[in-house]
C-alpha cells in the first residue's frame, strides 16, 4: 500500500512541478539545469569531507569498535525500541552532517538499505539536522552569547526524532 503510494511520489512530483511551472511561464528546463548545477556544488563541498570521514567509519567497523559501542548501549537503546546498531549514528548526528551521512551510508551498506537497521538509519538522517552546527551559525550571526535553553530544547527535538524514527519504521514497515 505505502509502496504503491510512494511509487507515485517521484513521477507525480516531476510531472506536476514541470506542468505547474510551465503554466506560470517559468523556463522549466533552464531551472532544472541550474538546480542540477547547484547540486554539483553541494556535492563537491561534501565529497572531501566524505573521503576523509568514511575511512574512519570503516576502520571503526572493522576494528569491532562499533559493535562494542552498540553492545554497551544496547540495554538502554533496546528498552527505547531503537536498534542498537544505530548507536554510532546517534552520537555523531548532532555534531557533523557529513560524518552522520558517512555513518548512515555505512550502515545501509553493511545491513542493506531495506533492512530494519538501514531504514531506521535513513529515517533518523531524514528527520534531523546538524543541531550544534545550526546553533553555532545562528547565534554567532545574531551576536548572541547567552543562548539560554536553546541547546537543551534542540536536543529534546533530536531525541524525539531518534525515538520517533525507530517507532515510525516499525509502524510503517513491520506491522
Amino acid at each position, binding site marked *: 500500500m505505502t*509502496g504503491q503510494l*510512494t511509487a507515485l511520489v517521484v513521477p507525480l512530483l516531476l510531472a506536476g512541478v514541470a506542468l*505547474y*511551472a510551465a503554466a*506560470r511561464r517559468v*523556463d522549466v528546463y533552464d*531551472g532544472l539545469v541550474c*538546480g*542540477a548545477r*547547484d*547540486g554539483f556544488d*553541494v*556535492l563537491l563541498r561534501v*565529497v572531501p569531507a*566524505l573521503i576523509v*570521514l*568514511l*575511512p*574512519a567509519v*570503516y*576502520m*571503526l567497523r*572493522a*576494528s*569491532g*569498535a562499533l559493535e*562494542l559501542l552498540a553492545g554497551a548501549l544496547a540495554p538502554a537503546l533496546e528498552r527505547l525500541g531503537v536498534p542498537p546498531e544505530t548507536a554510532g549514528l546517534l552520537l555523531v548526528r548532532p555534531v*557533523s552532517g557529513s560524518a552522520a*551521512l558517512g555513518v*548512515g551510508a555505512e550502515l545501509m*551498506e553493511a545491513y*542493506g*538499505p531495506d533492512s530494519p537497521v538501514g*531504514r531506521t538509519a*535513513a529515517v533518523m*538522517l*531524514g*528527520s*534531523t*539536522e546538524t*543541531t550544534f552546527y*545550526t*546553533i553555532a551559525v*545562528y547565534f554567532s*550571526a*545574531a*551576536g*548572541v552569547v*547567552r543562548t*539560554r535553553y*536553546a541547546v537543551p*530544547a534542540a536536543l*529534546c*527535538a533530536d*531525541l*524525539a526524532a531518534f525515538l*520517533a*524514527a525507530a517507532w515510525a519504521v516499525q509502524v*510503517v*514497515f513491520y506491522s
Partner: protein
Amino acid sequence: MAMTVLWAGMAAAAVLCALATGRMPEVSAAAVEGAGAAVELALSMAGMLCLWMGVMEVMRRAGLAEKLSRLLRPALRRLYPAFAGDRAVMDSIAANVSANLLGLGNAATPLGLRAAQAMARRTPGVASDGLCMLVVCNTASIQLIPTTVASVRAAAGCQTPFDILPAVWLASTLSVAAGIVAAKLLARVWPA
C-alpha cells in the same frame, strides 16, 4: 575543532580496538576501502541529488516557496507572539520555514539568519524566547522530500528509495512538536 576531536577520536578508538582484538590487518584494509567507498557513494548519489536540486529550483522559480510562506504566516504568528507585529521578521521566518520544507537549504539559511539578526536587535547578546524558538525550529528537520538520504539509499542499491517518506514525515512532525513544546516549557522556567 569539534571535527578534529571527532576524527582523531574515531581513528584512535579503531586502532585501540584493533590492538585488543587483533584485527589490525582488517582495519588497515578498511581505511583504504573507506576512501574508495566515499568516491563511489558520491558518484552514485550525484545523479539523483542533482535531479532533485533541479526540481527544487523549478519549484522556487514557480513561486511555490512564496505561496507556502503566505499559508504559513498565521500559524507562525502564534509561534512567535513577541514578533507577530514585526512584518519584516515574520516575512523572513515564513520564507525560512517554506524554504526548509521544500529542501532549499541554501535559500533557507540566509533568510533564517536575517530573521535572527533582526530579532537579536531587541535583546543584544541574549537569546529571546522568539530567537530560541527560531533556532530550535531550524535544528529540527522539516524537509518534505529528504533528497540526500534518498540518494544515499539509492546508492546502496535500494529500488524504492522514497518508501521511507511516510516514516520520515511522522518522525519529523513528532520531533518538531517535541522541540516546540520543550522550548515553550523551558521559556517559563529559564529567565532571560
